[in-house]
């Protein structure tokens, strides 16, 4: 294997793992590095409590980003997820308040999420309408629909046992459990199951996928359905965290989620990326937001700084990919 000897200095890992590892290494380094830098400036940042809160408060973004990554890897995009999460949270909360069994109020959003996303997936896959158009439309449908139905009345007096996010498993708070499990399962599935690989194939080269016996349309439909499931999970964490549900669609949440996915190294051109990356990215972004407060960045400048850091991460990732490709050429 003279070629690989050059391409991968005696790496025991398979190519896919090599890429994945280095991709996440970038984010891991960033996460740890940032923590250290900020920790030096303000040690309180490193308090377990704070680090835990960063995870807790943003787990729902990471969970949603898992589904979003799948969608993007399959060569599509979804703008409606933020609105959907708002809708699902409201549905879940209203059910609970209306006295439905807690399990029902937890399950319905999952089912509904799958249903809505599957519907969009079907339009994208079988009617061949670009995902950005479908989901853009769905965004305003959900947004407008939710307000016309609820009038934006806040949902309060939620039953105590509704608050899934307050539970914890072996001392680990539920949001984190859900985030880790969702990411791990999705990652393993996408890595090791033929259907999971089919997502990469579809995103990478749909025509070729078809000729390899992969059905791109079914794959896209499946991906959207799964995305809906993760959106449902996210909405649960989102809804059960606080005592109040706003019953409006969280502004700009979809962009935050997409950002997490792409910063995680998911190529918008489809075919590349890992959900572990997107979860790390979600954590990194949350960490940045919190860090900026800790190091006394002027609140006026926080958004600018966050934007710049995100841009830096993205560019770094792209450069890394390009060097890899270049390395491949010099065989």
């Amino acid at each position: 294997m003279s070629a690989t000897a050059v391409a991968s200095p005696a790496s025991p890992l398979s190519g896919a793992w090599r890429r994945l590892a280095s991709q996440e290494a970038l984010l891991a380094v960033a996460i740890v590095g940032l923590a250290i830098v900020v920790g030096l400036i303000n040690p309180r940042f490193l308090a377990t409590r704070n680090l835990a809160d960063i995870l807790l408060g943003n787990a729902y973004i990471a969970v949603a980003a898992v589904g979003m990554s799948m969608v993007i890897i399959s060569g599509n995009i979804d703008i409606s997820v933020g609105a959907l999460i708002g809708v699902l949270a409201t549905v879940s909360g209203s059910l609970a308040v209306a006295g439905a069994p807690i399990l029902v109020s937890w399950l319905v959003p999952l089912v509904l999420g799958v249903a809505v996303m599957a519907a969009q997936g079907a339009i994208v896959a079988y009617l061949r309408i670009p995902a950005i158009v479908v989901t853009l439309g769905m965004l305003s449908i959900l947004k407008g629909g939710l307000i016309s139905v609820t009038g934006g009345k806040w949902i309060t007096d939620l039953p105590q046992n509704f608050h899934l996010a307050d539970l914890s498993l072996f001392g680990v708070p539920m949001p984190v459990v859900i985030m880790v499990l969702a990411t791990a399962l999705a990652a393993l599935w996408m890595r090791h199951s033929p259907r999971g690989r089919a997502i990469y194939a579809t995103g990478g080269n749909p025509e070729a996928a078809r000729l390899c016996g992969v059905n791109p349309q079914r794959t896209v439909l499946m991906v959207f359905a799964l995305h809906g499931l993760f959106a449902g999970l996210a909405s649960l964490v989102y809804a059960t965290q606080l005592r109040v549900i706003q019953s409006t669609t969280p502004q700009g949440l979809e962009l935050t989620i997409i950002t997490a996915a792409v910063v995680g190294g998911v190529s918008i051109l489809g075919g590349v990326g890992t959900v572990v990356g997107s979860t790390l990215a979600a954590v990194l972004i949350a960490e940045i937001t919190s860090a900026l407060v800790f190091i006394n960045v002027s609140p006026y400048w926080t958004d600018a700084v966050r934007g710049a850091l995100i841009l830096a991460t993205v560019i770094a990732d792209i450069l890394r990919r390009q060097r890899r490709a270049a390395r491949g050429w010099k065989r």
Partner: protein
Amino acid sequence: MRASLLTSTAAAMFALSFAAGGASAASKWDGADDLPTSPLACDASAAAAPAAAKPYDGGQPTNPPDKAGKEITLVDVPKLIGIGYFNATSKGMQDAAKELGNVKVTTDGPTEAKIDEQIKFIDNYITRGVDGVLFAANDPVAIAPVLKKALSKGIHVVGYDANSTPDAREWFVNQAEFNGIGKGMMDSMAKEIGEDGSFAIVTSTFTTPNQARWIAEMQAYAEKCHPKMKWLETVEAQEDNNLSFNQATTLINKYGDKLKGLFGMTSVATPASAEAVTKAGQCGKIAVVGLATPNAMKPYLKTDCVKSVVLWNPIDLGYAATYVMRAVVDGKLKPGATSVEAGKLGKLNVVNGSEILLGPPFIYTKANIDKFDF
């Protein structure tokens, strides 16, 4: 190489932001406009301070149809629809409309607090033809042209909650003067955390006029009357529940025991801050004072995590606005008047020229909170 790129950029950013941070720490809150602040006297006799009788400075519609006593249709365009606060004001309007019998009000507006969206809504209703426009401005200046257009079309214009430039509307129903809020908030915070306590603020955005003004007034009043209280930091959290919660949590973690109190400047930020304090197990150690609607605050008042919530009753606000509009149409409220009858609220006073004061802000406590449902 990539790591270095990343870290170097990061470093650069931090450097930049420190610079900026230093700059802004020094800068004084001036309410995002450059209007002066007017802190009230420290003692309780705030109301006693009489507003210098200012001449009427509102605008007037050009030959409006005389609908005195006749059925009128009004449109209410709040900053945004779908939040508890404006649901409450519009409820008040419906109540008033029911009492009066000869008023029809519809509430319609943008789903996000965007100035140009709000302008489009008002413009549409001008075209559609209504007798009067009730508004809560997302921006006092930006909304002026379209309101003037309404006046020019003989449509009556009355503002509530968030004012526009005076000449763009006839009257503005002022729930509580900015300096009144500033005093109320600072005093109750001082009462809870003492004269030397330090506090932080969670607000929506620095551009939201009301919040910006309130913060400015709070600062001015604090400098005057609570000079030893320490102002730690102010953070933005949009009108977003989870974001507000995260920001409040971050503040708690950042300052630890230093932090004695949290201000919530919006009906979203306050319950979220209370939740953050609860989750952090700091109830009683960190006081939460803020503007909020009762329902969202009930749990926290019940658990004594929050002692008191400052807020006028938004239902009354909407109610008053409707009565004022009716009075204007009926010619009962003319420029120069000093008071107006507002149904169950009785006589409301006209202050600084063309504003009608709803009264001192209302304080909800464990005791009375259950009397309200909005």
